[in-house]
């Protein structure tokens, strides 16, 4: 359940960024989660529900953008998306490649902030 550690870090980062922009609450948080990041989306959502209690993210919508794995094929000289993560080979020519270009992301992409004053 390392998703709880991740959710706690997301909440802390988002709170810190929101605080830099005045009196705000976070309406939505968008994460980019690579397929190789070992993060389970449902577990992360459950963990987020726990981690955000009592923070400016208490009512935030969690948006998760899943990022598929992309590798560089040195034979086709092209970047290819892998259909799964069990075989690191070019889906076109079949040759093995471990040159990963995307799919390891564990990123806080953006926040949607709403001012809390005058409400």
């Amino acid at each position, binding site marked *: 359940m*390392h998703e709880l550690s991740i959710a706690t870090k997301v909440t802390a*980062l988002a709170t810190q960024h929101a605080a830099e922009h005045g009196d705000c609450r976070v309406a939505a948080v968008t994460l980019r989660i690579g397929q190789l990041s*070992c993060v389970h989306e449902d577990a992360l959502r459950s963990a987020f529900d726990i981690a955000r209690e009592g923070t400016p993210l208490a009512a935030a919508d969690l948006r998760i953008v899943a990022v598929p794995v992309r590798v560089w094929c040195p034979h086709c000289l092209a970047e290819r998306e892998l259909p799964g993560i069990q075989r690191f080979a070019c889906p076109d020519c079949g040759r093995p*490649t*471990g040159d990963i270009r995307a799919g*390891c992301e564990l990123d806080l992409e953006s926040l949607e902030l709403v001012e809390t004053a*005058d409400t």
Partner: protein
Amino acid sequence: MSHPVAPTPRILEVRTKILKANDETARAMRARFESLGLLVVNLVSSPGTGKTSFLLETLRRLAARNVPVAAVVGDLETDNDARRLAASGVPVRQIMTHGLCHLEADMVEAHLAGWDLAGLHYLFVENVGNLVCPTSWDLGESVRVALLSVTEGEDKPLKYPGLFNTADIAVITKIDLAAACEFDRDRALENIAAVRPGMRVLETSAKTGAGIDDWLAFLTDRRQTLPRACDTSPGRESGGAVVLGHDRGTTTTPDD
């Protein structure tokens, strides 16, 4: 008197790594370790793979050669592993995570206090037994080892590609039990190669000592490559298939 006008949300592009703080700590630790000529090795596997026995044999062999070495070991509870490893005569410290399923960089750093790192050649970090959670946490290591025992089944790499993909080397343990477990060696090697093409695999037994010399030779070779007295490690941030798997920097974040 205010009217119920829906507030306009403002989009703030943050684009930062969620584990940024850990990554920064780890990067600074690695730069410091490498500048001291200290090779830090992170051992990751399922519970029961035999990490502690493998590490104990490694520590014994290195201690017998008078190589300065130390170890920290992570477990949810108990200091049993530290006590087992202390039998090697090497300095060992236990990190008890009290339920946390992985080690983080600052936990390792906090447990190094008082050790003369400049006098050490190798520091081993035995992670909490878990094939998933430790994957995302860089501990400042120069080498990440994924261990797999013959008793676990040949398809472990396919089930846990994330860890195998971030490892620098795979170590198969307990090969003395291979026949009894009907371990399909070719399939295991094929599966490791599928998730991490070209990764070196060592076949070992802490009981018979098989493969341990190759492992020690690997460590010696890797330590030779350390950029001494250098505070950055070129290549690490360059993206693509660089030497060290888990710090590839596959995403570009403006503030990194």
